[in-house]
Each structure stands twice: as C-alpha cells, then as structure tokens.
C-alpha cells in the first residue's frame, strides 16, 4: 500500500466520522466514559494497594505493660525479642515519654492537661517491636502472648492492627473485583455502541461501497476506512478521558488539601503526575483496541463484499 492509498483511506475514515458526527460523538463519549471508569478503578486499586503496603511496612507490635511489671521483667522480654533473628527493632517507651507523645499529638489544651490533672501519669510503659518482614509478626506475637508474660502485659496492639490490615486487604480485593466487573461491563457497552455506529456508517455508505466494489476497489480500500473510524473514536475518547480526569483531579485537589495534611495532598499530586503517562498509555491502548475490535466485528458481520 503506497502513501497515496493510505492518505485516501484515512481521508475516507475522517469523512465517515464527520458525516455521522453526532452519532460518532456519542460513540466516542461512551468510550470516554468507559476509559474514565477503568482509569478510576485502576487509580483506586493502585492507591489502596500502595496504602496497604505502606501500612504493612509500618506495622509493628506494641506491648503495653501493667504498672506492676518490674523493669527487670520488661527488659527480659525486650532481650528475648531483640535476640530473635526476625525482629528488626525493639523500642522502649517510658511513662514520661508516652505522656510527652500524648501532649504533642493533642491539639486541645484541656486534653493536654489531663495527665497532670489526674495527679499521676496514666500512660503505660510500652515496647514497640518491628519485624524484618511484616509476615513474621504472627510468630513474634505468639511469643509475646505466651503464658510466661501474661502477668506483666496490659495490652498487645497487634490484634487491632491485624483486623485493620485484614479489612484493608479485603477492601483492595473488593475494589479490584468491582473494578473488573465495571470495566468489563463498560468495555462491552462501548464495543456495542461503536459496533452499532459503524454498522450505521456501513449502511449509510451502502451505495458508495457498492460502487467501490463495482469499479474494482480492493477489499482493503473498502474496509480500512471503517477501521480508521474506529481508531478515531478510540483516540478521541482517550484524549477526552485524559482531559476530564485531569480536570476532575484539579477540582478534587482543594478538597484533599482541606481535609488532609499538606503531605497527603503533595503525595496524591506526585502520585497522579508520576502515573499520568502510564494512565494515558493505558487509555490509548484500550480506546484504540476497542475501536479496532468493534470496527472489525462490524465489518465482518455487516459488510458484504
């Protein structure tokens, strides 16, 4: 196929698109919606996955001791844990340090004074254990929960964290599953709409196709303009989806800044822009693939040459 033929085929595709412009635009918009839905689910899955990774890496076991526990007992447990190969770090927090942390994290003065008003420091001593790998935490928790130490331990925070992590993982899985279902439904929907649009384009150009066939045009010349049309839908949808997602992100930013701390807002911004190219490529591939796929199907089904 020479340059001239390619030019003519592209021109015919563009003419097809323009001749049924409202229908073409509707098809491109449905495809845009599909790409937006898929992108949102991909972003959500990535964000939740990343968050749970961060939480997992920060996960530790905090053991709070009864006030009756002696320093020796605590340091014995501390040594037992520190000597384990799967323990990365054991950090001790005294009652005074715990109070300071409390004071620093509270914004209300009344709450800050609560400890001094009580007359005695209500915060327990604690040790925070970090594992070399979060999956090792279970084994470490087993040692801590053994009968030997029950008398000195007030509370172990691991169980609470474990529930939280479990919930996070189930949310991720749920989001992924829902994402797949929604994406599949939308892909099918846009394939059907594009298919129908191209079918109508084939129908509206019935005479032209007949004449092309009659005067000896190649199959490629007759069929390819419809594939070009499909590609145009995909490209248009890809650009529209990118622009709309970007606008959506821009309008969400003030909300993120308002409700979360500046670090989070910056993190989200960095995350979005670092994945921008990747998202665009994904939309481009899905858009063009759906366009070509639907066009090919339509040609096979409705174009008799």
């Amino acid at each position, binding site marked *: 196929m020479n340059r001239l033929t390619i030019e*003519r085929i592209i021109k015919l595709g563009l003419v097809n698109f323009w001749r049924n412009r409202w229908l073409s635009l509707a098809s491109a918009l449905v495809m845009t919606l599909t790409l937006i839905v898929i992108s949102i689910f991909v972003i959500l899955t990535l964000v939740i996955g990343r968050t749970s990774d961060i939480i997992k890496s920060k996960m530790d076991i905090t053991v709070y001791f009864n006030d009756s526990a002696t320093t020796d007992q605590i340091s014995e447990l501390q040594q037992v844990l520190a000597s384990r190969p799967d323990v990365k770090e054991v950090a001790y927090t005294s009652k005074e340090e715990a109070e300071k942390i409390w004071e620093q994290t509270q914004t209300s003065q009344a709450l800050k004074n609560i400890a001094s008003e009580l007359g005695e420091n209500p915060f327990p001593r604690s040790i925070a254990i970090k594992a070399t790998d979060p999956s090792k935490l279970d084994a470490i928790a087993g040692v801590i929960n053994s009968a030997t130490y029950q008398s000195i331990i007030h509370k172990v925070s691991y169980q609470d964290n474990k529930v939280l992590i479990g919930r996070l993982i189930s949310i991720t899985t749920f989001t992924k599953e829902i994402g797949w279902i929604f994406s599949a439904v939308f892909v099918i929907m846009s394939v059907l709409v594009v298919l129908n649009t191209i079918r109508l384009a084939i129908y509206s150009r019935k005479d032209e196709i007949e*004449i092309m066939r*009659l*005067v*000896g*045009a*190649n199959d490629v*010349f007759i069929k390819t303009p419809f594939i070009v049309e499909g590609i145009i839908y995909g490209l248009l949808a890809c650009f529209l989806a990118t622009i709309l997602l970007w606008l959506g992100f821009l309008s969400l930013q003030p909300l993120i800044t308002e409700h979360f701390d500046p670090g989070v807002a910056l993190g989200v911004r960095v995350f979005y822009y670092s994945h921008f190219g990747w998202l665009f490529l994904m939309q481009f591939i899905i858009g063009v693939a759906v366009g070509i796929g639907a066009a090919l199907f339509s040609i096979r089904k409705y174009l008799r040459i």
Partner: protein
Amino acid sequence: MLIEVVDVCKKYSDKIHALEHVSLSVDKGEFVSVVGPSGAGKSTLVRMLTCEEKPDGGKVLVAGRNILQLKPHELPYFRRKVGVVFQDFKLLPQKTVYENVAFALEVCGAEPKEIHDKVPRILDLVGMLKRRDNLPDELSGGERQRVSIARALVHSPKILIADEPTGNLDPVNAWEIIDLLSRINSRGTIVILMTHNKAIVDRLKRRVVLLKNGKVLSDKVKGGYII
C-alpha cells in the same frame, strides 16, 4: 472467443430457475443485445459475468480463464476490466460529475496525474465535459447515464456491460445512449446490452440473444426483438 458462458445454471429456489443451461460466446469487438422480458434472467447473467454471483453449474470464461475460480484478491482487478452500467446510474449524489468519475480511479490507487489526464478525456468522450462541476441532481437522466458510462470506461475495460441503461430514459435520450455505446464499441470494446426495449434492438441491427425463462431461445447475428 473473449467471453464464453458454458452451460450455466442458477436457481434461487426450487421454483425459481433464473438461468437454465445457458451457453453464449462473444468475440472481440462484438455488440450483443440480450433481450427478454422482466424475469428472463438478464440481470442474473450480468451478475455471473461480473462475478458477483456464482452459478450452480457451468463455467464462465473470460479471455480463456474461468472467472469462477478467481481468488478474492483477484476479483477487484477483474472488475476493472469489465465496466458495468445500470438502469439507476448508481452515482454518488454528493459528488460532482468529475468527482464521480475520479472516485473510480481513486479507490483503485491511481496517481493524481493519471486522474487529471484521464477524467476530462473520458468526460469529453461521453459529451459531459461541460457539466463536470455539476452534481447528479442537476443533470437529466440521459446525462446521468453518460456519467455512469464514463465511470465504467475509466479503467479502459475490454468489456462494457449495460444492464437496462435506457430503462429510465425517454426515447431521444435512450437513443443517444445507445449511440454512445455503439461509438464505444467501434473503438474495440465488447458491449453487452441487456434490454427489453424493442425499438432500440430493432434499430440497432446487431446480434440479438433472446432470453426467456432463463433459457436462450434464439441467437441471431442481425436480429430484431421477437418473442
């Protein structure tokens, strides 16, 4: 013989036999009128000759080659060698006279220079050069048929098949079209005219093949229209 139709049969259902054992030979430079009433099988024969439909039996040889055995990718090239003209002209309404003829070359990958050279020459041949920028809607029936003939001639075909080309025309315009077809024939192109217009056939005094109920009833070198 350039065209040989050998024992061709075609049936659309048990009751409708469009063609029954039709045999026909056409030599170089011939002008053949195939006549017969509606439903005689003329249009089916056209579709066999242009390879749009395959017969149930028999073979169709063009320049010694059985066109029924053409591979799909060879068909477009074959169709460029056979020009076809229809009763309803089949022009694209949104394209001008010039564009309609140029379109036939464009879709076959012709270079712009070839298009610029050929189209005006062919429009001149059919007497439509002056109307080159008009749309089909602005033309009379006869003029439209001339454009349709110009388009059919654009690939310099060896064979021109005209399926009821005068069916929508008044007698004056009809005769002008037949006159044009005769001139094209005199330049060496085989013309196969499908018609049921008695006046035209009688006046032409050329070979006439009579088709009725899918069968060849007569084949006369200088015939008239007798059923």
